[in-house]
């Protein structure tokens, strides 16, 4: 799993309830409001820059916003300046916090996270940056067992105190489900959530067609979410990348297994010819499991139409 996703899931886990996992962010009232949302920050009177935190948490209780940047190697001083200088006005302008928030009293809490083993260079770079710019940008280092502050200070007192010691965590309880993939995750990581949504459509009589945006962001006919949290709030380029990855998977499933059940009607649009019942569910489920296993092992998919599941489903029903 990508390090950025590990950090994001770990912190979302701290903001909701995960048994056996610290609830530091929840205690401070932080809730996830956006993922990978670009923010325009005024870094001096004549210059602005864009920063793109992996996750953004807002606390009504504390009137604070936590900006999470997951780092594994390189340090960009301009980006760091953006994090250090971000204000409530910048967040309001991007629609990340409510416009009626007390902007003067609002505290933006930037925080860099890096995996254990990569912290030495980053810690030195951030330390130098803080010294030169009179900044306080923090770096929190995480391993499989703990999280601790390696540089700077966290602008939320509770979080600072906690990370300044060691926050004990456990690999066995590390959350993974909140953001299971992003646009450059391996195909096998994306396949599971996409197949999950596709199966819902194949079981739901009220859904006769769907688009890639339905799979990602939630179908208008269902009350349930899509497989990409905050899809509509992602930037256009990120959405395009995700659309492309999901489309690739849906098309592979359609061509290799379901060509008589799903018809492609546009670049990112499909129509269902029917819905699954009885043994058809088991047959398609086995096909999906086979697909995921083949993708995981990097093996070739069955040739088109030689393994058409609907043919079997119809035969079963007959």
């Amino acid at each position, binding site marked *: *799993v990508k390090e950025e996703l590990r950090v994001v899931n770990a912190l*979302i*886990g701290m*903001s*909701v*309830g*995960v*048994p*056996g996992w610290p609830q530091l962010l929840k205690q401070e009232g*932080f*809730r*996830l*409001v956006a993922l990978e949302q670009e923010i325009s920050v005024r870094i001096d009177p004549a210059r602005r820059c864009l920063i793109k935190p992996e996750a953004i*948490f*807002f606390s*009504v209780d504390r009137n604070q916003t936590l900006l999470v940047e997951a780092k594994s190697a390189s340090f960009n001083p301009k980006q760091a300046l953006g994090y250090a200088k971000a204000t409530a006005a910048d967040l309001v302008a991007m629609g990340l916090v409510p416009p009626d928030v007390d902007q003067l009293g609002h505290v933006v809490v930037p925080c860099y996270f890096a995996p254990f083993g990569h912290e030495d260079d980053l810690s030195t770079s951030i330390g130098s940056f803080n010294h030169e710019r009179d900044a306080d940008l923090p770096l929190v280092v995480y391993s499989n067992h703990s999280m601790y502050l390696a540089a700077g200070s966290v602008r939320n007192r509770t979080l600072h105190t906690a990370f300044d010691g060691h926050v004990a965590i456990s*690999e*066995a309880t590390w*959350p*993974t*489900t*909140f953001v*299971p993939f992003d646009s450059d995750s391996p195909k*096998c*990581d994306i*396949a*599971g*959530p996409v*197949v*999950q*949504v596709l*199966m*819902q459509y194949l*079981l*739901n009589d009220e859904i006769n067609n769907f688009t890639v945006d339905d799979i990602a962001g939630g179908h208008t006919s*269902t*009350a*349930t*979410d899509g497989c990409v*949290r*905050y899809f509509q709030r992602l930037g256009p380029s990120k959405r395009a990348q995700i659309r492309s990855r999901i489309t690739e998977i849906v098309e592979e499933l359609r061509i290799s297994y379901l060509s008589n059940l799903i018809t492609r009607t546009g670049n990112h649009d499909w129509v269902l010819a029917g819905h699954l019942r009885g043994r058809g*569910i*088991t047959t398609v*489920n086995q096909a*999906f*499991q086979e*697909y*995921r296993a083949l993708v*995981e092992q990097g093996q070739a998919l069955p040739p088109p139409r030689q393994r058409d599941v609907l043919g079997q489903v119809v035969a079963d029903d007959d």
Partner: protein
Amino acid sequence: MARIVRPVSPLAVRGRADLEAYLGQSLLSEYFERQEGRTRQVATSLKTYMVEAHLAGDGRGLLANAFERVENTGDDLLFRAYDNSGEVYFVDALDPRLPHVHTIGHTNVTDATMAKVTRQPGADRCWLPSRLLLGTQLGRLIGFRFFHQRTVAGLFDSEESRQLAKELGRTSAPPFRMSVSEYAHADRELASLRELLPLGRRAAVDSLSWRTAEGTGSDGFIHDQVWGTGKIAAYGTSWPAHLNNVFLLRDLYRDALELLEDGYAIRDAETGTEGELLNIWFAEPGVVVDPRALMDHICSGQEPFRLVGTYAETSPGRYLGHLVDLHVGDPVTLELSKDALRVHLPAGSCANVLMRLLLNVERHLTAEVATSFDAVLAARA
């Protein structure tokens, strides 16, 4: 073929007020069965099945698929249904989420029919896990029953069990069952047997039997046997007391589902993401020897789990499954290791999957479990 002669016809039931006269025949053993020219008095228990349903319209569509014939009574939300054996059922859909079905037919027939009803898309049993059952108080406890059987793949089974299965020519050992009935000290024995016997700790509480006399008049009583699978079998003299217990269990169950859906499901609210993951820890060490095989079983679509989907190993011995609940087609995400099952219930998904998972973990893996949602299961009866 036995012909049942009941003084009160099911056709006489035109509303809820008429149910007592018809169903009370069973409570009071007032009807007869004729078989091969002989007539005998019959004492078949009154059965009430608790169902969790997502009914479209008045729910007749759901019933029509499972029953031979469905008729209206005089009440729009009370249906008379017949199975293919001719047994009669009264389906009370006043609560559309948790309808209940009354019958005085023979258990071997009605259990099979109700299994058919609750296996349909949109329907499910009400699953009453041990912790929820043990938290109820419906009068004086006079009996209990334990159940356990490891028929699920990937679990530890003792050498003795395997040997027994081999001797019996079966693929798995017969289920462990233990019943105590009509016993004045049942509550004390239940606690001590669960504490002292290894099998008592491992086994699920299959049913609890209560005797309720309070509020039924000087000579009235009801004996309700409440099963973990949502059946309440009754005999006695007080229909209102039985109904009172049914309503109490239904209220507890509805509260539990709503707490799980409103308090735990992961949702993206206006103020950000909230909710909680739900854990079931296996307190019996070593019960899961092969989580991959267990995960295979769970997401195969088979009863009792009714889940389909795919899974992957995320770290050694830890599996993440993106699944769909065949009950209503809702998504649910599971993580499984040798120590625990963790459930991510998305907003909008039906929480009955949690109850189904927990009860069947108790029945088929181990009842020595701890959960992160004990507060939900701790009934307030």
